């Protein structure tokens, strides 16, 4: 018998019967997040800000990318929940050990260096115990880009700020020549 990706199959099968299964680690959060704990969010906000930093124009934090990722993880990206949980846990574990503080409190340049290591799988298994660091990195990178450059209707790109940056704001928008009320 050939091997199915059993986790995806079970998820797909259970979703296919019309019920939405939340993983046991998901719970209602304070701090306005559907999925993340307050601490997890602080870590991820700093991570996303590394991906798209504020300069002359707003960055990922200003755009509210965290809300995009939080919302999608609770709904359409449920199968990525474990990757985020484990990735953030690994990242904080490593930072506390190496720097004596959590990721978001580490100096910006050090954060950049560390994320490059994650991107290229440069940490030892003992330093990054659960999953491949590049899988986690690439997921956050991709979701940050979606949340920053996608439509605000999905939770990020606050007030179309990335479209303003790209000079494709009103009256030039994607798909048709008017904004839809959110």
């Amino acid at each position, binding site marked *: 018998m*050939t*091997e*199915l*990706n059993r986790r*995806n*199959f079970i998820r*797909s099968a259970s*979703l*296919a*019967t*019309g019920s939405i299964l939340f993983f046991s680690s998901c719970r209602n959060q304070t701090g306005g997040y559907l999925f993340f704990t307050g601490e997890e969010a602080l870590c991820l906000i700093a991570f996303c800000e*590394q*991906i*798209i*930093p504020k*300069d002359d*124009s707003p*960055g990922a934090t200003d755009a509210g990318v965290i809300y995009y990722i939080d919302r*999608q993880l609770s709904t*359409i990206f449920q199968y990525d929940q474990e990757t985020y949980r484990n990735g953030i846990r690994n990242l904080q574990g490593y930072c506390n050990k190496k720097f004596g503080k959590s990721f978001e409190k580490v100096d910006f340049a050090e954060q*950049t260096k560390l994320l490059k290591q994650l*991107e290229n799988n440069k940490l030892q298994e003992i330093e990054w115990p659960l999953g491949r660091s590049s899988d986690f990195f690439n997921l956050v*990178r991709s979701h*940050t*880009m*979606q949340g920053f*450059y*996608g*439509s605000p*209707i*999905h939770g990020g790109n606050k007030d179309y700020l*990335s*479209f303003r*940056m*790209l*000079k*494709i704001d009103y009256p*030039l*928008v*994607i*798909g*048709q*020549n008017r*904004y*839809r009320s959110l």
Partner: protein
Amino acid sequence: MANKHVNALVVGAGAGGGVVAKELATAGISVVLFERGEWPIYDEHPNDELISQRTEVLGSPFGPDHLKNPRVLINKEGKKEIATPIRGGYSNNAACVGSGTVSYGAMAWRFMEEDFQLKTVYGAVAGSTLDDWPITYQDLEPCYEKAEWEIGVSGDDTQNPFAPPRKKKQPMPPFEYNQEARVLYDASKRLGMHPFPLPMLRNSVPYNGRAACIRNRTCCGYACPVNAKNGSQNTVIPVAMATGNCEVRTGSKVVEIMVDDRGKATGVKYFDKNEKPQVQTADLIVVSGAAIETARLLLNSKSKLFPHGAGNNFDWVGRNLMGHAYTGAYGLFDWDILDFSGPGATVAWCDFNHHNPGIVGGGLLANEFNRLPFLYCGVRPPGSERWGKEHKDFQRNMYHRTAQVVGPIQEMPMYESRVTVDQEVKDFWGIPVAALSGDRHPLDYEHCKFLSSKAEAILKEAGAYQTWQSVGGQGGPSGGQHQNGTARMGNDKNTSVVNRYGQVHEIDNLFVADGSIMLNGGGFNPALTIMALGFWVGGHIARNFAGTKFK
């Protein structure tokens, strides 16, 4: 209460199915046109890049439901993975009335004569099932003309020296070039190439009672806000319905073709809008579900004389799955070459479709339709930073200063690139799903490198200060929105599924009229050819069907 028996069923209201329904209905044949989706609604996803027909990251704007319709991908080692419409490798086609023709880029290409006779022109290709079609371009020419006039095409083939012969011109004048097209036009002429205006299934002027295109740049992947993009849903299907002979039955998922013990198709089983199982009987059936779902339906339709699926006694159903690898190049300019005049792609070249030394076939080139923010995140010269300030700077500074020339490569059909049915994984309705497996022919990558080099040459000549190629054609199997090949035409039932009229060998009243019956995909977007095949198959049925059976 049982459904009333009708003359004909058409499964799938897309480019092929919509045309067939019209040909039958206007000939007085009663038709039920099944569509698993609904009529498209413009207002649902108008300006959302992440839910668009090109980028289905957060959903498919025209379905199908991503939770209810899994497929299986089988890699080279035999390992299986579940794919959904929003998780890569699925090869989705819009599930709505009109299907892809609602939101497509709408390029309106006639294949060239050579595209129907690749084996004669180039010889056999080792490792490929490359072969000639049992019909020629001349057979299909009147059907191309019907498609151009009844659905509506803008263009001027007199400007394309490689255009195949035609009796009648395209009904509407071509679209004007946008800014980058003019620059690329001039550059390519200096290189001795033959640029011309891209033919489109889109109203350049008012036509068929609908408005002219408003020149929205970000058109491809979206339904048209003024209904100027021509598909089967706003042309032939309403004509079919107006005869009184055609019922469009939406929300209906056909899951099996019933074939009796004597090898005659008798009707279909389907799930209706309320998910109730139903039966609809008819005198004849035409399948137009696109290459993957058509193959799946045939394979799931087992009967006494066809234990391996309808028309599949010789194991050709689902074989030769193809699509189009896209390949081209990018150029960076020191001025704002991008303008926002749509439909975006306006200039094309057919210099490289055929008779390129050492290349079997080839493909067209054109300037690219869209510039969209999230997709642009991936457009970077090799060696660029993938994130951080440098990535953001490039996004901001170069968004208006990048041009792209790109085209679809003619793929070499592979017997082992195929659609099968997975017996373990089932969809929401309990029906075994399509499984995709196999690999591309190694020539696809070589051919893509060739076409990309031509694209890069145009951009360099146009004054780009930096260019790079984006070469497709690696990793298979192919498929995607241009999927074709899985129920190929042929004169020999041992090596094909349907005859030259799309009639399934050995099941006289079962037909296929979509991209599945093509033997190769051309180096062209296939929609107009699929519509022409709809006129071809539908016209044949209409002429030969008398009352309850064929003459």
